[in-house]
């Protein structure tokens, strides 16, 4: 195997050196190889989860004979379309474990990848706007503290001090308090995909873009390879990590998943001066908000209710989200919105992900992250790499197998979060 071109280490010295030679020495961050005939592991989907899976296969298990196959461009799916909220204040123990592992990996990810992913643990607030939410979030705070996830309850005055643009009085939904996770925040979504891609390429892995998987070849209940728009590629193990298209890949392999695909939208305003330095989620009214480094207010809402693969959501949901948010953030009503877009998210019944073996030997799935998987990218990749390398789940993935649906052993986060971003 010819050595892949290394991208060189990024550092302040590299910037100074390049500044002196008109930035002529930067090389490609990742290679653009033609596919080989076979790989030990093929990962389908170069979103954050697929790339992180490949990265930890190499880093934690020394498996670098890996191809990540992507039908479009890497990070062009939900990974490049989300509102980048990172938190780990989930209710159930298995969720808290994997999301907190993920959040803690984010803390040092820029150093680990030698790529600035702009992790910004600016703090995250979930507003309680009904009596039920007060009880629900207080319960989550108690659970989190037992799980070793640091969260606390704030009263309305403490919230107003942190978020001066907040209107506490309602009238429809007054702010009654909130759950606060000081080490929650945001990161640059594209950079997470790019950083993992560069690190994978540096380890000699192949990232093959513009290559759609159209079939899965099996023999005697065992995976043999995939059919793609660039030909047949063989593999010993196959990891399906394609979010909204998980049902389609599963169908190619001959099984079904408890997944439905729906559109989720987001929008950003024109850039304004800094006015809010935390992330605020208002789950009762299905709206959440942060301010980007450029000054845009980044706004997300709830999903559409019907199956959809068009990456386009219904206008009425944008209207609902904005209508709800301007009650709690009146200053938003003066802002022009610049862009609006959608992604196709993979929803499970209990709103928890699936990291699992499948009915076909050698095929593993990682999906069901739905509306909230950006925050989970490092932890999910970590757990998925272990599952693929060993063939059985480690402690982080254990609870998230497909068998939980048959056994009625749900990890119910739908009641706990309402909105799960």
């Amino acid at each position, binding site marked *: 195997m010819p050595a892949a071109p290394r991208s060189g280490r990024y550092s302040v010295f590299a910037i100074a050196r390049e500044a002196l030679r008109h930035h002529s020495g930067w090389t490609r961050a990742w290679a653009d190889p033609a596919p080989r005939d076979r790989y030990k592991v093929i990962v389908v989907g170069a979103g954050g989860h697929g790339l992180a899976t490949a990265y930890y296969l190499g880093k934690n298990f020394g498996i670098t004979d890996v191809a990540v196959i992507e039908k479009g461009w890497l990070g062009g799916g939900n990974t490049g379309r989300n509102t980048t909220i990172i938190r780990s204040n989930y209710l159930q123990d298995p969720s808290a474990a994997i999301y907190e592992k993920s959040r803690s990996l984010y803390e040092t990810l820029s150093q680990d990848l030698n790529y600035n992913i702009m992790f910004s643990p600016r703090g995250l607030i979930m507003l309680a706007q009904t009596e039920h939410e007060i009880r629900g979030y207080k319960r989550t705070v108690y659970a989190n503290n037992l799980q070793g996830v640091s969260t606390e309850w704030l009263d309305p005055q403490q919230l107003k001090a942190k978020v001066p643009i907040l209107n506490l009085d309602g009238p429809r939904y007054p702010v009654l308090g909130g759950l606060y996770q000081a080490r929650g925040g945001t990161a640059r979504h594209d950079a997470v995909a790019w950083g993992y891609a560069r690190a994978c390429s540096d380890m000699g892995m192949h990232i093959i873009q513009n290559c759609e998987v159209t079939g899965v070849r099996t023999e005697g209940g065992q995976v043999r390879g995939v059919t793609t728009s660039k030909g047949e590629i063989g593999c010993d193990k196959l990891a399906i990590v394609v979010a909204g298209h998980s049902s389609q890949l599963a169908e190619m392999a001959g099984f079904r998943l408890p997944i439905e*695909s729906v559109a989720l939208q987001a929008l950003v305003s024109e850039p304004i001066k800094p006015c809010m330095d935390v992330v605020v989620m208002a789950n009762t009214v299905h709206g959440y908000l942060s301010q980007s480094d450029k000054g845009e207010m980044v706004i997300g809402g709830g999903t559409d209710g019907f199956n959809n693969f068009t990456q386009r959501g*219904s206008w009425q949901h944008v209207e609902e989200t904005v209508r709800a948010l301007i009650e709690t953030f009146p200053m938003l009503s003066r802002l022009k919105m610049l862009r609006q877009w959608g992604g196709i998210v993979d929803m499970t019944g209990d709103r928890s992900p699936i990291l699992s073996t499948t009915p076909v030997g050698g095929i593993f799935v990682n999906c069901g992250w739905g509306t909230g998987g950006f925050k989970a990218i490092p932890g999910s990749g970590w757990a998925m790499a272990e599952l693929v390398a060993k063939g059985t789940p480690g402690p982080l993935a254990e609870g998230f197998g497909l068998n939980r649906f048959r056994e009625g052993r749900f990890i119910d986060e739908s009641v706990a979060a309402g909105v799960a971003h």
Partner: protein
Amino acid sequence: MLTLTCPCCGIRAEETELHPGGEAHLVRIGPEGDDAAFESYLFARRNVKGVHFERWRHAYGCGKWFLAARCTATLQVFGTYSAQTTHPPAEIVDAIRAARPDWTPDWTSDWTTP
């Protein structure tokens, strides 16, 4: 915005009047069903990218359930029909075939045969 004509009251309803109810024509398992059949009935959705049969309720209208045939890849609606049927009626099948000549109905596999 999605608009569907409610076959119960004849009103052309827009999305805000309607409540989606997921995949249609699921066959409820009987007392003889095993764990796998029950799991499949509850969770294993087709989640088709293409022609999809689904349940809707005219929630802010007549309040009744009905069924629709829709393409999830283009949002084209082929038609709506009564919920009191085990498979799509002939005129819906014809409407789908007219728009998607390569589409074939597959209700011999796990839908009850007419």
